[in-house]
């Protein structure tokens, strides 16, 4: 998979990319200088990663709270297992739903298996949207809860590449 860079450099590049591209005229050259290879090698590696689907997207990554989307609700539902595929597909296409994931229940503490994120400016607007959404999809009667976020302690990208101490042995 890493035809362009050797394994340690490829990992180094991934770690750097996870924190974002430098805001400079030649961002890939800056990264190349940091890991000791050519700008061309970095670009080829990034292109290859994009082709194999390592990235969901490459672009501007925003912080919704700072941009005014302060009402962020996580809608969690307990959907019967045999219906979760169909309900998930329908809700995943609904306007206003940003994320829709199936996750495991953890009984007895946690009975919910379908998660939707809905972002908006005002709490009232998000509540209405969700009520409407549930009604439209015949879900008003399913056990569900709305978990609004009231504070962001941390908001950054995932760190998937192993830290240096773990790559010492390949």
């Amino acid at each position, binding site marked *: 998979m890493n035809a362009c860079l050797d394994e340690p450099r490829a990992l180094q590049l991934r770690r750097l990319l996870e924190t974002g591209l430098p805001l400079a005229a030649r961002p890939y050259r800056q990264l190349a200088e940091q890991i000791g290879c050519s700008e061309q090698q970095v670009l080829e590696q990034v292109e290859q990663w994009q082709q194999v689907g390592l990235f969901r997207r490459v672009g501007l990554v925003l912080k919704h709270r700072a941009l005014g989307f302060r009402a962020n609700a996580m809608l969690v539902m307990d959907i019967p297992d045999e219906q979760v595929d169909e309900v998930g597909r329908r809700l995943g296409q609904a306007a206003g739903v940003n994320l829709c*994931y199936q*996750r495991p229940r953890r009984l007895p503490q946690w009975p919910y298996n379908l998660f939707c994120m809905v972002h908006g400016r005002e709490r009232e607007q998000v509540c209405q949207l969700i009520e409407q959404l549930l009604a439209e999809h015949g879900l008003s009667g399913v056990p569900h809860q709305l*978990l609004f976020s009231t504070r962001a302690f*941390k908001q950054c990208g995932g760190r998937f590449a192993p830290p240096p101490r773990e790559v010492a042995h390949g």
Partner: protein
Amino acid sequence: MHIDALSRRLIDRFQHGMPLCAEPYRAMAEELGCSEDEVLACLEQLQAAGGLSRVGPVFEHSRAGASTLVALAVPEARLEQVAARINAFPEVNHNYLREHRYNLWFVLTGPDRAHIDRLLAEIEADTGLVPLDLPMQQAFRIDLGFPLGDIR
């Protein structure tokens, strides 16, 4: 925060994808009909104001490694301390306070599931709180950014 016209156009145009080339900001400027310096200044300003997390790839969880959503039921009095402890893990992102008995919600990412399991054990040992471990089983919709029309 105030979002000027160029920021709005940059977000609108390049939130979902941007040119992959040696001089991406120049290419973006050409598409928008402005200068590279204007693009860079605008991005720096957005970042300083807190509206821009970064520019670059969002990794696909399933390809890039392992991840899970974690919830902790933290007693009110310990919230600041536990949240700070959780934030200190580089593998933690999107750590939020939510209105629920399970009030602290965050995403753990790592190179593989074993790494996640070690982190969960460490969190439990450190905080004395039993984490809810809720890995994604199926994605019906992934976050592709915001409908910009809504951003003022």
